[in-house]
């Protein structure tokens, strides 16, 4: 792989002090042709081998102390999400209360990482979460399809940031990606990154959603990972949760390899967020095993790994109670929010 990888300095992360790769004017992202050549030059992905590796890691048996650690870690990594047309301020406030105190009966349960809502609910969430340390994440850029003019996407982002969003979950233009217009996708991510900058020049963290289910091939997922990281993503995220195929262990494993390799090459660490379809504690623990044995323990914190989920939290709570008491208390002993 080309060790001369560099990107144009305009990425959102550039604000964090340009050293090394960020300061170098990039040949890789200098033109559509160069970017395409770079992305298509990444090592291919053998689907059978990738899925086999994910399946083997799925057989790890996580018990007792390791399970307790994993459950609490998973809870602290959740972006507790409601993205429904029917969302109301009341619904969002309840979810915020749940995120701050997941188990009313047990103060030792960690709070979730963030509450994830649509942009118009950001103010409500921000207010409800005040002082808690739980972040407000907002989807933006014409989520989930991303089919809108760039100005609309940027306005969507700015509105969410202005309303107090700490994190922006943008969707890429899958149409442009699949058509091979990689530089356009790259520039859009950069532009959204710039829209994340607040008047005081601090900025909201940027998560870039690929919608793996629409990218369809593992080669595309690897290319998209590098594209987004070069463009300055703080996190790369699998899915919107709104299409048929969402987060999969194999797709997430591949993205973990990408962030691992990217840090090795550039020194820049990027987070990973699988989202959609992760509903059980057992699944969550499998994902943590993938993190542990692929990217490594540096990624085992909410700063670098998140779960986009809604029903996962209650299953983690039930498993936590089971581990503590030795029995299942049942769904009526966790709150429905």
């Amino acid at each position: 792989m080309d060790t001369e990888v560099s990107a144009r300095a305009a990425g959102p992360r550039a604000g964090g002090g340009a050293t090394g790769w960020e300061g170098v004017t990039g040949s890789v992202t200098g033109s559509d042709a160069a970017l395409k050549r770079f992305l298509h030059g990444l090592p291919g992905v053998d689907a059978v081998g990738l899925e086999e590796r994910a399946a083997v890691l799925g057989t790890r048996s996580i018990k007792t102390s390791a399970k307790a650690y994993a459950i609490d870690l998973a809870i602290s990594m959740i972006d507790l999400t409601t993205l429904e047309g029917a969302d109301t301020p009341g619904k969002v406030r309840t979810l915020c209360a749940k995120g701050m105190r997941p188990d009313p009966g047990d103060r030792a349960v960690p709070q979730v990482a963030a509450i994830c809502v649509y942009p118009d609910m950001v103010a409500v969430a921000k207010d409800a979460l005040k002082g808690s340390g739980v972040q407000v994440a907002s989807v933006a850029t014409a989520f989930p399809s991303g089919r809108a003019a760039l100005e609309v996407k940027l306005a969507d982002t700015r509105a969410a940031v202005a309303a107090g969003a700490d994190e922006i979950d943008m969707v890429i233009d899958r149409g442009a990606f699949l058509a091979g217009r990689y530089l356009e996708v790259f520039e859009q991510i950069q532009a959204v990154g710039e829209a994340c900058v607040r008047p005081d020049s601090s900025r909201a963290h940027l998560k870039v959603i690929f919608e793996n289910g629409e990218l369809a091939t593992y080669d595309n997922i690897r290319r998209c990972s590098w594209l987004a990281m070069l463009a300055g993503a703080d996190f790369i995220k699998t899915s919107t949760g709104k299409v048929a195929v969402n987060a999969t262990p194999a797709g997430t494993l591949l993205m973990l390899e990408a962030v691992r390799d990217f840090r090795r090459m550039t020194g820049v660490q990027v987070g990973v967020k699988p989202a959609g379809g992760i509903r059980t504690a057992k699944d969550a623990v499998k994902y943590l095993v993938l993190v542990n044995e692929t990217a490594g323990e540096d990624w085992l914190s909410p700063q670098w790994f998140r779960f986009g989920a809604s029903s996962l939290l209650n299953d983690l709570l039930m498993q936590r109670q089971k581990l503590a008491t030795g029995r299942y208390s049942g769904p009526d002993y966790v709150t429905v929010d």
Partner: protein
Amino acid sequence: MAFAYAPAPESRAIVDIAPSYGLFIDGEFTESADGRVFKSVSPSSEEVLAEVARAGERDVDRAVKAARRAFATWSALPGAERGKYLFRIARILQERSRELAVLESLDNGKPIRETRDFDLPTVAAHFFYYAGWADKLKYAVTGRSPMSGTSGPDPKPLGVAGQVIPWNFPLLMLAWKVAPALATGNTVVLKPAETTPLSALFFADVCRQAGLPRGVVNILPGYGDAGAALVAHEDVDKVAFTGSTEVGRSIARAVAGTRKKVTLELGGKAANIVFDDAPIDQAVEGVVKGIFFNQGHVCSAGSRLLVQESIQDELLDALKRRMSTLRVGDPLDKNTDIGAINSPEQLARITELAAAGEAEGAERWAPACELPSSGYWFAPTLFTGVSQAHRIAREEIFGPVLSVLTFRTPAEAVEKANNTPYGLSAGIWTEKGSRILSVANKLRAGVVWANTFNQFDPTSPFGGYKESGYGREGGRHGLEAYLDV
């Protein structure tokens, strides 16, 4: 480490190992004629698992006579009836798979993850597969089509098969031997390896449970002398052996000039060839699976990594990083990747060859890993700077030791891969389909894996070129070795 996996041991309670076992002859467990016994030891703890009767020449004779008696009725059964027995055995093996997996891990030292997810499912699959052939033999090997409508006699079984199997996949090697032999109407006398006799003896119990007629399967635990007596027995019609090339040679000599049909599945020194356009992450997984699967106790192990020089550094970095995550230890822990070396003798051989690698100037590397204090262990090890002349590039180590060599062009890769007296298997890693086909055609190896390694399937024939042996096991081809065609 932040996320330290707590011990997750599979329970031993599911398997009930008796203090002593006899030989299984003519449907009965019996003592050996001279009363000799030996101990089967768990290589991970050095605990004695059971005392086992040790077969000698007179026992071999008894067993072959029993198999001969059983042959008349067994071979006369309609194929569909023999198939029923095999299906029954396959189902019982599935039902008892957890028990047998634990037993195999204890006796062999291999991790429960492998016995549970590979050995036992593949064992059952072999019986299911050959059960299906039992009533279709006339289409299997004669070239006759089921669509042609012509009828005719079934090809004939050979008679009594003497089978000698190794310790690396005790029950799976048994399945490879016994399933096609029974499906084709032969009866068998099987000698398991002296370090791993227990699963074969449990298989004897499975045969009884399935109601298999007495004498059709006979199991003779013992040492090389029993194997030699079996091979040399004048009433054995077919010899099947899996093991070292050295023993294979002596078997070939012993049967030379007799009517006996022979298949030999012997050693290997497979090249795993990684081209610069390979899917790197999967290639690293494949290299790991190629050499560290079953502690490297695999005849088809990818023990020579041939990596294109232009990606050597990148690939080795990734490989070392991956090797550092391998979990070595208690075979019964469900998270163990690498278990114990099967015997002190094998450990001594691996240690000796690894020392020779260092002495000859190759650079040795192993990840930091703590090995258990009792039992026989060897850390996953990598040698770089290996040349074709080094012993570790030429001799079969049969352990978790990988020799890394480089090449510059596809032609050089092929030349180096073929530059070995062995020819059992090889691996090719490239995203270019045409290169897979062109290289595979030039490799002198019985099995060539493309973008994968150490995949086994009952439908696929397996066997070697050159000094890796002759004959094929598995698939339709595996039937031929047991039929008079």
